[in-house]
């Protein structure tokens, strides 16, 4: 389903196989509560909306926030894709996809362009997203200021008053010590020129994809009971200095399997001599690139 009908999703009939549980596991009242939080989050881009996260049948820290958001968004006509580290076949992605196959019996897919909802951990797909898609992020620590200020009561005040000087102190200290901003993932962004937001632990390589994305981006943190959003076509600027601009980094070579360039690569160690090769982290994109190449031949 798309962002427009988020608030009006009707309660579908329970799946036959798991008749003990409601469609997509959560009961309708809980989903309604989550949808209200989602609407608030969309209305205030980058703001962490508290929500009454439920105990899920998978552990906190393993995607309970993302699963609750996905559950609240899913309809029977959706096509769901679940990735972890960019891949559809990593163990936790498999486990979450199976959970929704059992409890919602929705169509699942590994192809980015076919999916209407994509739940992800740590990556944004390489294939550009569209207005008809929702990207749901699993978030471990939603507070970008947490490691500078451990107290929630204090960080909420800092957000409310837009006191973000401390964030730049951290970046300043990085450059003073290392010559670079030493944040490689979960690199903070400012959304809609207002709230500073943790984009979840995606590599900073993915940060540019956050900004002005046609798809709705939803972030769920189950254990910390927070939901936030980057609405479609909303600016998300990575924090930096004018004379030390944000650098997305990335390995300067093509994927050893598909030859794609400008994509995020995993380093694979192939023997005990430390020989390594670089392959696409986004497995669907890699397969597609190879299939396209074969078709062209």
């Amino acid at each position, binding site marked *: 389903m798309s962002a427009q009908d988020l608030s009006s999703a009707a309660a579908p009939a329970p799946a036959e196989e798991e008749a003990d549980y409601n469609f997509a596991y959560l009961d309708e009242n809980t989903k309604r509560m989550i949808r209200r939080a989602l609407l608030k989050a969309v209305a205030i881009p980058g703001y962490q909306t508290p929500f009454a996260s439920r105990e899920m049948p998978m552990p906190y820290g393993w995607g309970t926030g993302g699963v609750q958001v996905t559950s609240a968004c899913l309809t029977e006509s959706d096509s769901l894709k679940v990735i972890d580290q960019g891949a559809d076949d990593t163990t936790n992605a498999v486990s979450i996809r199976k959970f929704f196959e059992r409890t919602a019996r929705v169509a699942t897919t590994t192809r980015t362009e076919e999916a209407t909802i994509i739940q992800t951990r740590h990556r944004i797909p390489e294939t550009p997203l569209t207005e008809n898609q929702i990207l749901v992020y699993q978030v471990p620590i939603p507070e970008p200021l947490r490691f500078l200020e451990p107290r929630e009561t204090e960080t909420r005040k800092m957000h409310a*008053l837009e006191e973000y000087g401390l964030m*730049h102190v951290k970046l300043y200290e990085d450059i003073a010590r290392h010559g670079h901003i030493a944040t490689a993932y979960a690199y903070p962004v400012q959304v809609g020129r207002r709230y500073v937001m943790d984009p979840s632990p995606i590599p900073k390589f993915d940060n540019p994809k956050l900004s002005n994305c046609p798809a709705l981006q939803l972030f769920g943190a189950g254990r910390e009971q927070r939901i936030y959003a980057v609405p479609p076509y909303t600016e998300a600027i990575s924090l930096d200095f*004018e*004379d030390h601009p944000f650098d997305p980094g990335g390995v300067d070579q093509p994927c050893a399997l598909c030859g794609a360039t400008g994509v995020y690569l995993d380093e694979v160690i192939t023997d005990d001599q430390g020989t390594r090769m670089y392959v696409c982290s986004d497995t669907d994109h890699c397969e597609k690139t190879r299939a396209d190449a074969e078709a062209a031949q």
Partner: protein
Amino acid sequence: MIGAPLFKLSGLTKLYGARVGCRHASLEVRAGEVLAVVGESGSGKSTLLSCASGQMLPTSGGVLHGATSPDGRTVWRDIYQDLSEPERRKLLRSEWAYVHQDARDGLRMSVSAGGNIGERMMAAGARRYGAIRREAEAWLARVEIPTDRLDDRPTAFSGGMRQRLQIARALATGPKLVFMDEPTGGLDVSVQARLLDLVRRLVAEYDLAVIIVTHDLAVARLLAHRMVVMKQGRIVESGLTDQILDDPLHPYSQLLVSSILQT
């Protein structure tokens, strides 16, 4: 140069339950003017400073911030009644600054000297690393800290250096009014003298207004144009520093002055 009035207390009263913190305190400070608030411990001078500097809501009375309007008039606004919390906090980190008695309360001990000085600039929107660093370096030099200590943390600094760093951090964004709470307390006598010298120089150079709380009349004599004497929560005497020290009128001021001069 004494300029336009920029700060005023009118009938400031702070009660802690039935106990009086301070009562009916009124005073005014002009640009470039140093005012010392003296009195022994328990006299209410710390309460007055906390309320005046925006950290504690008074029970009654006004804490007024004066701004000059385009047509040259002074517009008074009560920082608790007329300013929202964001406005008040913004005032506290732009036009006003605070120097704590213990430098550890005013510094981030795990952040380098440069980061400490740069924080207020960055909070105010500075986004050029090189410029922030050069500015921080210049401030280190102004407070007589070797510039090669720019990347060191205050934990590695002596007490006197920490206090000078705190002053640099407070002044880096060009405040007009600085509150100081016993800034020389806890320092060795020789270190105190050097710090006072520095403060006097900076006050003159940057045309700062200062409200300094101290129990040490020597500090008041060295720095302040005017002073107020507090006893049991009330201002019992106020006037030019030399005048009060040379010819105190109130019996308590006389006692205070004579006791200091004897020691």
